[in-house]
Protein backbone atom coordinates (compact mmCIF):
# COMPACT_ATOMS: atom_id res chain seq x y z
CA UNK A 1 0.00 0.00 0.00
CA UNK A 2 1.29 3.47 -0.85
CA UNK A 3 1.95 5.58 2.23
CA UNK A 4 -0.33 8.41 1.06
CA UNK A 5 -3.03 8.23 -1.60
CA UNK A 6 -6.15 10.01 -2.77
CA UNK A 7 -9.44 8.38 -3.56
CA UNK A 8 -12.43 9.68 -5.47
CA UNK A 9 -14.68 6.87 -4.23
CA UNK A 10 -15.95 5.84 -0.80
CA UNK A 11 -13.14 4.84 1.57
CA UNK A 12 -13.22 1.24 2.86
CA UNK A 13 -11.03 1.03 5.98
CA UNK A 14 -11.19 -2.80 6.18
CA UNK A 15 -9.03 -3.15 3.09
CA UNK A 16 -6.53 -0.57 4.34
CA UNK A 17 -6.30 -2.29 7.70
CA UNK A 18 -5.25 -5.55 6.09
CA UNK A 19 -2.39 -3.82 4.34
CA UNK A 20 -0.93 -2.80 7.70
CA UNK A 21 -0.87 -6.31 9.17
CA UNK A 22 2.60 -7.33 10.18
CA UNK A 23 3.76 -10.32 12.24
CA UNK A 24 5.93 -7.99 14.38
CA UNK A 25 3.00 -5.71 15.19
CA UNK A 26 1.16 -6.14 18.47
CA UNK A 27 -1.57 -3.69 17.62
CA UNK A 28 -3.05 -1.18 15.27
CA UNK A 29 -4.60 2.25 15.74
CA UNK A 30 -6.62 4.17 13.20
CA UNK A 31 -8.30 7.51 12.83
CA UNK A 32 -11.27 8.37 10.66
CA UNK A 33 -12.25 11.92 9.77
CA UNK A 34 -15.95 12.32 8.91
CA UNK A 35 -17.95 15.04 7.23
CA UNK A 36 -20.02 16.79 9.91
CA UNK A 37 -23.22 18.73 9.42
CA UNK A 38 -22.09 22.06 10.84
CA UNK A 39 -19.13 24.39 10.92
CA UNK A 40 -18.72 27.70 12.64
CA UNK A 41 -22.43 27.87 13.49
CA UNK A 42 -23.66 27.12 9.96
CA UNK A 43 -25.46 24.00 8.75
CA UNK A 44 -23.35 22.14 6.22
CA UNK A 45 -25.07 20.04 3.52
CA UNK A 46 -22.09 18.63 1.68
CA UNK A 47 -18.38 19.13 1.14
CA UNK A 48 -15.99 19.30 -1.74
CA UNK A 49 -12.31 18.46 -1.34
CA UNK A 50 -9.73 19.60 -3.81
CA UNK A 51 -6.03 18.88 -3.69
CA UNK A 52 -2.87 19.87 -5.41
CA UNK A 53 -2.32 16.16 -5.92
CA UNK A 54 1.27 15.76 -7.08
CA UNK A 55 2.55 17.92 -4.29
CA UNK A 56 0.12 16.55 -1.71
CA UNK A 57 1.17 12.96 -2.36
CA UNK A 58 4.81 13.88 -2.01
CA UNK A 59 4.18 15.82 1.16
CA UNK A 60 1.79 13.21 2.62
CA UNK A 61 4.22 10.37 1.91
CA UNK A 62 6.98 12.29 3.62
CA UNK A 63 4.82 12.70 6.73
CA UNK A 64 3.95 8.99 6.88
CA UNK A 65 7.57 8.00 6.40
CA UNK A 66 8.57 10.46 9.10
CA UNK A 67 6.06 8.94 11.52
CA UNK A 68 7.36 5.41 10.85
CA UNK A 69 10.91 6.53 11.66
CA UNK A 70 10.02 8.86 14.50
CA UNK A 71 7.97 6.31 16.45
CA UNK A 72 9.74 3.17 15.25
CA UNK A 73 6.49 1.53 14.12
CA UNK A 74 5.92 -1.29 11.63
CA UNK A 75 3.66 0.26 9.01
CA UNK A 76 1.47 3.30 8.45
CA UNK A 77 -0.67 4.80 5.72
CA UNK A 78 -3.09 7.61 5.02
CA UNK A 79 -5.88 7.89 2.43
CA UNK A 80 -7.72 11.13 1.71
CA UNK A 81 -10.92 11.67 -0.26
CA UNK A 82 -11.25 14.24 -3.00
CA UNK A 83 -14.39 15.37 -4.80
CA UNK A 84 -17.94 15.55 -3.47
CA UNK A 85 -18.78 14.15 -0.03
CA UNK A 86 -22.07 13.93 1.83
CA UNK A 87 -22.54 14.45 5.57
CA UNK A 88 -21.38 11.35 7.46
CA UNK A 89 -18.97 10.17 4.79
CA UNK A 90 -15.41 9.22 5.53
CA UNK A 91 -13.07 12.06 4.44
CA UNK A 92 -9.72 10.79 5.65
CA UNK A 93 -8.31 7.60 7.11
CA UNK A 94 -5.03 7.05 8.94
CA UNK A 95 -3.71 3.77 10.28
CA UNK A 96 -0.56 2.67 12.07
CA UNK A 97 0.56 -0.76 13.25
CA UNK A 98 3.28 -1.17 15.84
CA UNK A 99 4.76 -3.52 18.40
CA UNK A 100 3.14 -1.55 21.24
CA UNK A 101 -0.01 0.52 21.45
CA UNK A 102 1.63 3.78 22.59
CA UNK A 103 3.62 4.11 19.38
CA UNK A 104 0.61 3.15 17.26
CA UNK A 105 -1.58 5.84 18.86
CA UNK A 106 1.17 8.45 18.75
CA UNK A 107 2.03 7.81 15.10
CA UNK A 108 -1.62 7.90 14.09
CA UNK A 109 -2.12 11.20 15.87
CA UNK A 110 1.06 12.63 14.41
CA UNK A 111 0.10 11.73 10.84
CA UNK A 112 -3.41 13.21 10.95
CA UNK A 113 -2.15 16.40 12.64
CA UNK A 114 0.66 16.88 10.15
CA UNK A 115 -1.52 16.07 7.14
CA UNK A 116 -4.13 18.60 8.20
CA UNK A 117 -1.37 21.08 8.87
CA UNK A 118 0.89 20.71 5.85
CA UNK A 119 -0.76 18.96 2.93
CA UNK A 120 -2.30 21.22 0.26
CA UNK A 121 -5.93 20.18 0.45
CA UNK A 122 -8.84 22.62 0.35
CA UNK A 123 -12.34 22.13 1.53
CA UNK A 124 -15.40 23.84 0.08
CA UNK A 125 -18.45 23.78 2.29
CA UNK A 126 -21.96 23.91 0.86
CA UNK A 127 -24.40 25.27 3.41
CA UNK A 128 -28.10 24.59 3.83
CA UNK A 129 -28.96 28.14 2.86
CA UNK A 130 -27.49 27.50 -0.59
CA UNK A 131 -24.34 29.50 0.11
CA UNK A 132 -20.89 27.98 -0.12
CA UNK A 133 -17.33 28.90 0.78
CA UNK A 134 -13.79 27.61 0.68
CA UNK A 135 -12.53 26.88 4.12
CA UNK A 136 -8.93 27.55 4.92
CA UNK A 137 -6.88 24.51 5.50
CA UNK A 138 -6.06 24.10 9.15
CA UNK A 139 -2.78 25.91 9.05
CA UNK A 140 -4.29 29.08 7.64
CA UNK A 141 -7.24 28.90 9.97
CA UNK A 142 -5.08 28.26 12.98
CA UNK A 143 -2.55 30.88 12.07
CA UNK A 144 -5.24 33.39 11.32
CA UNK A 145 -7.24 33.09 14.48
CA UNK A 146 -8.03 30.21 16.72
CA UNK A 147 -5.47 30.41 19.46
CA UNK A 148 -6.73 32.10 22.56
CA UNK A 149 -3.99 34.42 23.65
CA UNK A 150 -3.91 37.23 26.08
CA UNK A 151 -4.73 40.55 24.56
CA UNK A 152 -4.96 39.04 21.10
CA UNK A 153 -7.43 40.47 18.66
CA UNK A 154 -9.73 38.32 16.57
CA UNK A 155 -8.41 38.20 13.09
CA UNK A 156 -9.27 36.41 9.91
CA UNK A 157 -7.91 36.15 6.42
CA UNK A 158 -9.85 38.67 4.46
CA UNK A 159 -8.55 37.97 1.00
CA UNK A 160 -8.68 34.78 -1.03
CA UNK A 161 -4.92 34.45 -0.58
CA UNK A 162 -4.97 32.22 2.45
CA UNK A 163 -7.79 30.07 1.17
CA UNK A 164 -6.68 29.40 -2.35
CA UNK A 165 -2.91 29.68 -2.67
CA UNK A 166 -1.37 26.22 -2.73
CA UNK A 167 1.01 25.34 0.05
CA UNK A 168 4.28 24.95 -1.74
CA UNK A 169 6.61 23.36 0.75
CA UNK A 170 9.09 25.81 2.21
CA UNK A 171 12.55 25.39 0.73
CA UNK A 172 15.23 25.41 3.42
CA UNK A 173 17.89 23.85 1.18
CA UNK A 174 20.32 26.75 1.47
CA UNK A 175 20.48 26.57 5.24
CA UNK A 176 20.16 22.79 5.45
CA UNK A 177 23.23 22.68 3.19
CA UNK A 178 25.33 24.02 6.06
CA UNK A 179 27.12 21.03 7.57
CA UNK A 180 26.29 22.29 11.08
CA UNK A 181 22.58 22.58 10.26
CA UNK A 182 21.42 19.68 8.09
CA UNK A 183 18.04 18.01 8.54
CA UNK A 184 18.63 17.54 12.25
CA UNK A 185 19.28 21.25 12.72
CA UNK A 186 16.25 22.14 10.65
CA UNK A 187 14.16 19.91 12.91
CA UNK A 188 15.51 21.75 15.95
CA UNK A 189 14.52 25.06 14.37
CA UNK A 190 11.06 23.72 13.54
CA UNK A 191 10.54 22.45 17.07
CA UNK A 192 11.57 25.76 18.63
CA UNK A 193 9.30 28.52 19.87
CA UNK A 194 10.46 32.12 20.16
CA UNK A 195 8.80 35.12 21.77
CA UNK A 196 9.70 38.46 20.21
CA UNK A 197 8.79 41.34 22.49
CA UNK A 198 8.51 44.51 20.44
CA UNK A 199 7.75 44.57 16.70
CA UNK A 200 9.75 47.70 15.94
CA UNK A 201 13.13 48.44 14.41
CA UNK A 202 14.78 45.46 16.13
CA UNK A 203 11.79 43.15 15.90
CA UNK A 204 11.25 43.75 12.17
CA UNK A 205 14.38 41.97 10.93
CA UNK A 206 14.45 39.47 13.82
CA UNK A 207 10.89 38.31 13.11
CA UNK A 208 11.43 37.99 9.38
CA UNK A 209 14.65 35.98 9.63
CA UNK A 210 13.24 33.69 12.31
CA UNK A 211 10.07 33.01 10.35
CA UNK A 212 11.98 32.50 7.12
CA UNK A 213 14.30 30.05 8.88
CA UNK A 214 11.28 27.94 9.82
CA UNK A 215 10.99 28.50 13.58
CA UNK A 216 7.88 26.48 14.46
CA UNK A 217 6.09 28.98 16.67
CA UNK A 218 6.64 32.71 16.98
CA UNK A 219 4.88 35.00 19.45
CA UNK A 220 4.81 38.73 18.69
CA UNK A 221 4.13 41.10 21.57
CA UNK A 222 3.40 44.74 20.77
CA UNK A 223 0.59 46.99 21.91
CA UNK A 224 1.29 49.81 19.44
CA UNK A 225 -0.11 50.56 16.03
CA UNK A 226 1.98 51.13 12.91
CA UNK A 227 2.85 54.81 12.43
CA UNK A 228 4.20 56.51 9.32
CA UNK A 229 7.38 57.47 11.20
CA UNK A 230 8.09 53.77 11.87
CA UNK A 231 8.46 52.65 8.26
CA UNK A 232 12.00 53.93 7.63
CA UNK A 233 13.35 51.41 10.15
CA UNK A 234 10.54 48.84 10.21
CA UNK A 235 10.19 47.72 6.58
CA UNK A 236 8.27 44.64 7.69
CA UNK A 237 5.29 47.02 7.38
CA UNK A 238 3.92 48.83 4.35
CA UNK A 239 2.02 52.07 3.96
CA UNK A 240 -1.25 50.13 3.97
CA UNK A 241 -0.45 48.89 7.49
CA UNK A 242 -0.44 52.37 9.03
CA UNK A 243 -2.90 52.37 11.91
CA UNK A 244 -3.07 48.56 12.19
CA UNK A 245 -1.83 46.84 15.36
CA UNK A 246 1.85 46.07 14.80
CA UNK A 247 1.59 42.54 16.16
CA UNK A 248 -1.21 41.67 13.74
CA UNK A 249 0.41 43.33 10.71
CA UNK A 250 3.74 41.63 11.46
CA UNK A 251 2.03 38.25 11.89
CA UNK A 252 0.36 38.67 8.49
CA UNK A 253 3.70 39.39 6.88
CA UNK A 254 5.29 36.33 8.49
CA UNK A 255 2.48 34.05 7.32
CA UNK A 256 3.02 35.37 3.85
CA UNK A 257 6.71 34.57 4.18
CA UNK A 258 6.37 31.08 5.60
CA UNK A 259 3.21 29.17 6.29
CA UNK A 260 5.04 26.52 8.28
CA UNK A 261 5.26 29.04 11.10
CA UNK A 262 2.55 29.37 13.69
CA UNK A 263 2.33 33.07 14.47
CA UNK A 264 0.72 34.33 17.63
CA UNK A 265 -0.06 38.04 17.61
CA UNK A 266 -0.37 39.44 21.11
CA UNK A 267 -1.69 43.00 20.90
CA UNK A 268 -0.52 44.20 24.30
CA UNK A 269 2.47 45.78 25.95
CA UNK A 270 4.55 43.58 28.21
CA UNK A 271 3.43 44.35 31.76
CA UNK A 272 4.14 43.03 35.24
CA UNK A 273 0.81 41.20 35.01
CA UNK A 274 1.30 39.35 31.70
CA UNK A 275 5.06 38.96 31.38
CA UNK A 276 5.44 35.69 33.29
CA UNK A 277 2.71 33.99 31.28
CA UNK A 278 4.21 35.25 28.03
CA UNK A 279 7.80 34.29 28.78
CA UNK A 280 6.80 30.92 30.21
CA UNK A 281 5.12 29.92 26.95
CA UNK A 282 8.23 30.00 24.74
CA UNK A 283 11.71 28.44 24.58
CA UNK A 284 13.71 31.55 23.68
CA UNK A 285 12.99 35.23 24.25
CA UNK A 286 14.06 38.18 22.08
CA UNK A 287 13.80 41.53 23.79
CA UNK A 288 13.26 44.11 21.05
CA UNK A 289 11.46 46.97 22.79
CA UNK A 290 12.56 50.59 22.86
CA UNK A 291 12.40 51.24 26.59
CA UNK A 292 14.38 50.28 29.65
CA UNK A 293 11.30 49.65 31.70
CA UNK A 294 10.32 46.76 29.42
CA UNK A 295 13.90 45.53 29.22
CA UNK A 296 14.18 45.14 32.98
CA UNK A 297 10.68 43.65 33.18
CA UNK A 298 11.71 41.03 30.61
CA UNK A 299 15.06 40.51 32.32
CA UNK A 300 13.38 39.69 35.63
CA UNK A 301 10.88 37.38 33.96
CA UNK A 302 13.51 35.37 32.05
CA UNK A 303 15.57 35.06 35.23
CA UNK A 304 12.50 33.79 37.11
CA UNK A 305 11.47 31.41 34.33
CA UNK A 306 15.00 30.28 33.46
CA UNK A 307 14.71 31.16 29.78
CA UNK A 308 17.54 32.18 27.47
CA UNK A 309 17.06 35.73 26.22
CA UNK A 310 18.75 38.02 23.74
CA UNK A 311 18.51 41.75 24.39
CA UNK A 312 19.36 44.61 22.07
CA UNK A 313 18.95 48.35 21.96
CA UNK A 314 20.23 51.17 19.80
CA UNK A 315 21.20 54.79 20.07
CA UNK A 316 21.69 56.79 16.88
CA UNK A 317 24.54 54.92 15.15
CA UNK A 318 25.39 52.31 17.75
CA UNK A 319 23.82 49.40 19.50
CA UNK A 320 24.22 47.19 22.55
CA UNK A 321 23.66 43.45 22.69
CA UNK A 322 23.39 41.30 25.76
CA UNK A 323 22.69 37.61 26.03
CA UNK A 324 21.25 35.93 29.09
CA UNK A 325 21.55 32.19 29.60
CA UNK A 326 19.82 30.54 32.57
CA UNK A 327 22.92 29.44 34.41
CA UNK A 328 23.93 30.09 37.97
CA UNK A 329 27.01 32.08 36.98
CA UNK A 330 25.58 34.12 34.10
CA UNK A 331 25.21 37.93 34.49
CA UNK A 332 21.77 39.39 33.85
CA UNK A 333 20.84 42.91 32.78
CA UNK A 334 20.72 44.06 36.39
CA UNK A 335 24.20 42.71 37.01
CA UNK A 336 25.43 45.12 34.34
CA UNK A 337 23.10 48.03 35.24
CA UNK A 338 22.59 47.84 39.01
CA UNK A 339 21.13 51.34 39.18
CA UNK A 340 18.09 50.50 37.03
CA UNK A 341 18.25 53.67 34.97
CA UNK A 342 14.84 54.90 33.93
CA UNK A 343 13.58 55.91 30.54
CA UNK A 344 13.88 59.58 29.87
CA UNK A 345 17.36 59.55 31.42
CA UNK A 346 18.80 58.07 28.27
CA UNK A 347 17.62 58.69 24.73
CA UNK A 348 15.20 56.67 22.67
CA UNK A 349 14.65 56.71 18.91
CA UNK A 350 11.94 59.37 19.06
CA UNK A 351 14.19 61.80 20.92
CA UNK A 352 17.66 60.94 19.68
CA UNK A 353 16.93 59.93 16.09
CA UNK A 354 18.05 56.72 14.44
CA UNK A 355 19.09 55.49 11.01
CA UNK A 356 17.06 52.44 9.91
CA UNK A 357 19.91 49.97 9.29
CA UNK A 358 21.15 50.42 12.87
CA UNK A 359 18.26 48.60 14.57
CA UNK A 360 18.08 46.51 11.37
CA UNK A 361 21.59 45.20 11.98
CA UNK A 362 21.11 44.69 15.70
CA UNK A 363 17.77 42.88 15.21
CA UNK A 364 19.34 40.60 12.62
CA UNK A 365 22.12 39.86 15.12
CA UNK A 366 19.49 38.90 17.70
CA UNK A 367 17.94 36.47 15.21
CA UNK A 368 21.42 35.10 14.52
CA UNK A 369 22.07 34.59 18.23
CA UNK A 370 18.72 32.86 18.72
CA UNK A 371 19.31 30.46 15.81
CA UNK A 372 22.85 29.85 16.98
CA UNK A 373 21.53 28.96 20.41
CA UNK A 374 18.81 26.66 19.03
CA UNK A 375 21.31 24.91 16.76
CA UNK A 376 23.88 24.63 19.55
CA UNK A 377 26.56 26.28 17.46
CA UNK A 378 29.58 27.50 19.40
CA UNK A 379 31.07 29.65 20.70
CA UNK A 380 28.64 30.61 23.42
CA UNK A 381 27.58 34.27 23.57
CA UNK A 382 29.63 36.87 25.41
CA UNK A 383 28.92 37.42 29.08
CA UNK A 384 28.20 41.09 29.37
CA UNK A 385 27.74 43.74 26.77
CA UNK A 386 28.68 43.82 23.12
CA UNK A 387 28.75 47.34 21.73
CA UNK A 388 28.45 47.71 17.98
CA UNK A 389 29.36 50.97 16.26
CA UNK A 390 27.80 51.04 12.82
CA UNK A 391 29.80 54.07 11.66
CA UNK A 392 33.22 52.52 12.16
CA UNK A 393 31.91 48.94 11.88
CA UNK A 394 33.66 48.05 15.08
CA UNK A 395 32.44 45.86 17.89
CA UNK A 396 33.66 45.79 21.44
CA UNK A 397 32.84 43.12 23.95
CA UNK A 398 32.83 44.25 27.57
CA UNK A 399 32.86 41.37 30.00
CA UNK A 400 30.62 41.39 33.03
CA UNK A 401 30.45 38.95 35.88
CA UNK A 402 27.45 37.97 37.92
CA UNK A 403 27.07 40.64 40.57
CA UNK A 404 26.77 39.40 44.13
CA UNK A 405 23.59 40.74 45.67
CA UNK A 406 22.03 41.49 42.29
CA UNK A 407 18.26 41.79 42.43
CA UNK A 408 17.97 38.83 40.13
CA UNK A 409 18.70 36.68 43.12
CA UNK A 410 15.47 37.94 44.65
CA UNK A 411 13.45 38.82 41.57
CA UNK A 412 10.21 38.78 43.54
CA UNK A 413 11.35 41.99 45.17
CA UNK A 414 11.32 43.79 41.88
CA UNK A 415 8.03 42.25 40.89
CA UNK A 416 6.33 43.42 44.05
CA UNK A 417 7.49 46.97 43.48
CA UNK A 418 5.91 47.13 40.04
CA UNK A 419 2.49 45.82 40.96
CA UNK A 420 0.93 48.92 42.46
CA UNK A 421 0.00 51.12 39.46
CA UNK A 422 2.73 53.66 38.85
CA UNK A 423 0.82 55.94 36.53
CA UNK A 424 -2.40 57.81 37.10
CA UNK A 425 -4.35 60.03 34.71
CA UNK A 426 -5.96 63.39 35.39
CA UNK A 427 -7.69 65.93 33.19
CA UNK A 428 -6.24 68.88 35.12
CA UNK A 429 -3.81 69.62 37.92
CA UNK A 430 -6.72 70.87 40.02
CA UNK A 431 -8.31 67.46 39.73
CA UNK A 432 -5.09 65.80 40.89
CA UNK A 433 -4.88 68.11 43.89
CA UNK A 434 -8.50 67.38 44.69
CA UNK A 435 -7.65 63.67 44.66
CA UNK A 436 -5.24 64.31 47.53
CA UNK A 437 -1.94 64.42 45.65
CA UNK A 438 0.92 66.76 46.38
CA UNK A 439 2.29 67.77 42.99
CA UNK A 440 5.97 67.92 42.15
CA UNK A 441 7.39 69.23 38.88
CA UNK A 442 10.65 67.53 37.90
CA UNK A 443 11.26 69.42 34.65
CA UNK A 444 14.35 71.56 34.30
CA UNK A 445 14.05 75.26 35.09
CA UNK A 446 14.08 76.37 31.44
CA UNK A 447 11.10 74.18 30.67
CA UNK A 448 8.92 76.05 33.17
CA UNK A 449 9.31 79.46 31.64
CA UNK A 450 6.26 79.36 29.42
CA UNK A 451 3.85 77.56 31.72
CA UNK A 452 0.29 78.82 31.76
CA UNK A 453 -1.17 79.55 35.22
CA UNK A 454 -3.15 76.29 35.18
CA UNK A 455 0.12 74.39 34.70
CA UNK A 456 2.06 75.94 37.54
CA UNK A 457 3.34 73.62 40.20
CA UNK A 458 4.84 75.14 43.31
CA UNK A 459 7.19 72.33 44.27
CA UNK A 460 9.99 72.17 41.75
CA UNK A 461 12.64 69.44 42.03
CA UNK A 462 14.56 69.29 38.73
CA UNK A 463 15.34 65.74 37.69
CA UNK A 464 18.99 66.50 37.01
CA UNK A 465 19.48 67.62 40.60
CA UNK A 466 17.51 64.71 42.02
CA UNK A 467 19.67 62.25 40.12
CA UNK A 468 22.85 63.87 41.28
CA UNK A 469 21.67 63.77 44.87
CA UNK A 470 21.92 67.55 45.20
CA UNK A 471 18.32 67.69 46.35
CA UNK A 472 16.25 65.00 47.99
CA UNK A 473 12.72 63.89 47.35
CA UNK A 474 10.42 64.69 50.32
CA UNK A 475 10.39 61.79 52.73
CA UNK A 476 6.70 61.76 53.52
CA UNK A 477 3.55 62.43 51.55
CA UNK A 478 1.56 61.13 48.61
CA UNK A 479 3.19 62.65 45.54
CA UNK A 480 2.22 62.92 41.93
CA UNK A 481 5.34 63.48 39.82
CA UNK A 482 4.85 65.58 36.70
CA UNK A 483 7.01 66.28 33.67
CA UNK A 484 6.35 67.32 30.06
CA UNK A 485 5.28 63.98 28.57
CA UNK A 486 5.20 61.53 31.47
CA UNK A 487 8.37 59.67 30.54
CA UNK A 488 10.81 61.19 33.00
CA UNK A 489 8.22 61.28 35.78
CA UNK A 490 7.63 57.57 35.30
CA UNK A 491 11.37 56.94 35.55
CA UNK A 492 11.64 58.90 38.78
CA UNK A 493 8.53 57.29 40.27
CA UNK A 494 9.87 53.88 39.39
CA UNK A 495 13.24 54.70 40.90
CA UNK A 496 11.61 55.86 44.13
CA UNK A 497 9.45 52.75 44.26
CA UNK A 498 12.55 50.69 43.82
CA UNK A 499 14.01 52.50 46.80
CA UNK A 500 10.99 51.44 48.84
CA UNK A 501 8.64 54.43 48.47
CA UNK A 502 5.10 53.18 47.97
CA UNK A 503 3.16 56.44 47.70
CA UNK A 504 4.69 58.07 44.61
CA UNK A 505 2.98 58.16 41.24
CA UNK A 506 3.66 59.50 37.78
CA UNK A 507 1.14 61.59 35.87
CA UNK A 508 0.41 59.72 32.66
CA UNK A 509 1.21 61.74 29.55
CA UNK A 510 2.61 64.65 31.58
CA UNK A 511 1.52 68.23 31.08
CA UNK A 512 1.06 67.58 27.37
CA UNK A 513 -1.92 65.36 28.22
CA UNK A 514 -3.85 68.12 30.02
Amino acid at each position, binding site marked *: MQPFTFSTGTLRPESFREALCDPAAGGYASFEGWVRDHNDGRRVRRLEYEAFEALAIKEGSRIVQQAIEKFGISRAACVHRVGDLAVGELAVWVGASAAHRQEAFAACRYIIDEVKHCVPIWKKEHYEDGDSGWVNCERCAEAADGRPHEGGVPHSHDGPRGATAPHLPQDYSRQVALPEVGQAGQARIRNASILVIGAGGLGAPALQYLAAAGVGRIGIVDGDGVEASNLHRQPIFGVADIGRPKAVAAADRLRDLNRDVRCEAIVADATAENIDALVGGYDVILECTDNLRAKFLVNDAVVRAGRPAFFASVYQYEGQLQAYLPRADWPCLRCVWPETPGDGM*VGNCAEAGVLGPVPGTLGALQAMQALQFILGLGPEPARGLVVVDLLSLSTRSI*RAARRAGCDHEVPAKHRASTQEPLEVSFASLAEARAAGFELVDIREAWERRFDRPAERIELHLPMSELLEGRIAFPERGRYLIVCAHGVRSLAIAERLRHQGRADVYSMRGGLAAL
Partner: protein
Amino acid sequence: MTRTVHVQYFAALREQAGRSAETCETSAATPRDLYSDLRQRHGLALPEALLRVAINEEFCDWERPLADGDRVVFIPPVAGG
Protein backbone atom coordinates in the same frame (compact mmCIF):
# COMPACT_ATOMS: atom_id res chain seq x y z
CA MET B 1 51.93 61.26 39.20
CA THR B 2 50.25 61.29 35.79
CA ARG B 3 49.17 58.38 33.65
CA THR B 4 48.25 58.07 30.01
CA VAL B 5 44.86 56.45 29.50
CA HIS B 6 42.77 55.87 26.40
CA VAL B 7 39.18 56.94 26.87
CA GLN B 8 36.24 55.92 24.75
CA TYR B 9 32.72 57.35 24.89
CA PHE B 10 29.48 55.73 23.84
CA ALA B 11 25.96 56.83 22.96
CA ALA B 12 24.80 60.11 24.54
CA LEU B 13 28.24 60.58 26.08
CA ARG B 14 29.90 60.55 22.70
CA GLU B 15 27.45 63.19 21.53
CA GLN B 16 28.09 65.38 24.54
CA ALA B 17 31.86 64.94 24.43
CA GLY B 18 31.87 65.62 20.70
CA ARG B 19 34.27 62.73 20.13
CA SER B 20 34.26 58.97 20.39
CA ALA B 21 37.74 58.57 21.85
CA GLU B 22 40.68 60.48 23.19
CA THR B 23 43.97 59.87 24.93
CA CYS B 24 44.40 61.73 28.21
CA GLU B 25 47.26 62.55 30.48
CA THR B 26 45.61 62.43 33.88
CA SER B 27 46.50 62.62 37.53
CA ALA B 28 43.23 60.91 38.41
CA ALA B 29 43.76 57.79 40.48
CA THR B 30 40.39 56.16 39.77
CA PRO B 31 37.80 56.22 36.99
CA ARG B 32 35.57 58.23 39.34
CA ASP B 33 38.12 61.06 39.47
CA LEU B 34 38.80 60.76 35.77
CA TYR B 35 35.10 61.02 34.90
CA SER B 36 34.69 63.98 37.18
CA ASP B 37 37.53 65.82 35.34
CA LEU B 38 36.22 64.88 31.90
CA ARG B 39 32.72 65.84 32.89
CA GLN B 40 33.84 69.34 33.65
CA ARG B 41 36.08 69.59 30.62
CA HIS B 42 33.45 68.46 28.11
CA GLY B 43 30.28 69.53 29.90
CA LEU B 44 28.96 65.97 30.11
CA ALA B 45 25.41 65.93 31.44
CA LEU B 46 25.08 62.32 32.56
CA PRO B 47 25.83 61.70 36.24
CA GLU B 48 28.05 58.71 36.89
CA ALA B 49 25.20 56.95 38.67
CA LEU B 50 23.67 56.30 35.24
CA LEU B 51 26.88 55.01 33.68
CA ARG B 52 29.09 52.00 33.87
CA VAL B 53 32.81 52.09 33.48
CA ALA B 54 34.92 49.37 31.97
CA ILE B 55 38.68 49.11 31.96
CA ASN B 56 40.42 46.93 29.42
CA GLU B 57 37.15 45.41 28.20
CA GLU B 58 35.90 44.45 31.65
CA PHE B 59 33.26 46.22 33.73
CA CYS B 60 34.75 47.41 36.98
CA ASP B 61 33.84 49.61 39.92
CA TRP B 62 34.51 53.32 40.06
CA GLU B 63 37.28 52.97 42.64
CA ARG B 64 39.52 50.61 40.72
CA PRO B 65 43.01 52.14 40.52
CA LEU B 66 43.94 53.44 37.07
CA ALA B 67 47.15 52.22 35.49
CA ASP B 68 49.23 53.64 32.70
CA GLY B 69 47.91 52.54 29.30
CA ASP B 70 44.44 51.52 30.54
CA ARG B 71 41.63 51.54 28.02
CA VAL B 72 38.75 53.20 29.83
CA VAL B 73 35.20 53.09 28.50
CA PHE B 74 32.31 55.14 29.83
CA ILE B 75 29.01 53.74 28.74
CA PRO B 76 25.38 54.65 29.40
CA PRO B 77 22.56 52.19 28.83
CA VAL B 78 20.67 52.72 25.58
CA ALA B 79 17.02 51.99 25.06
CA GLY B 80 16.10 52.61 21.42
CA GLY B 81 14.70 49.88 19.28
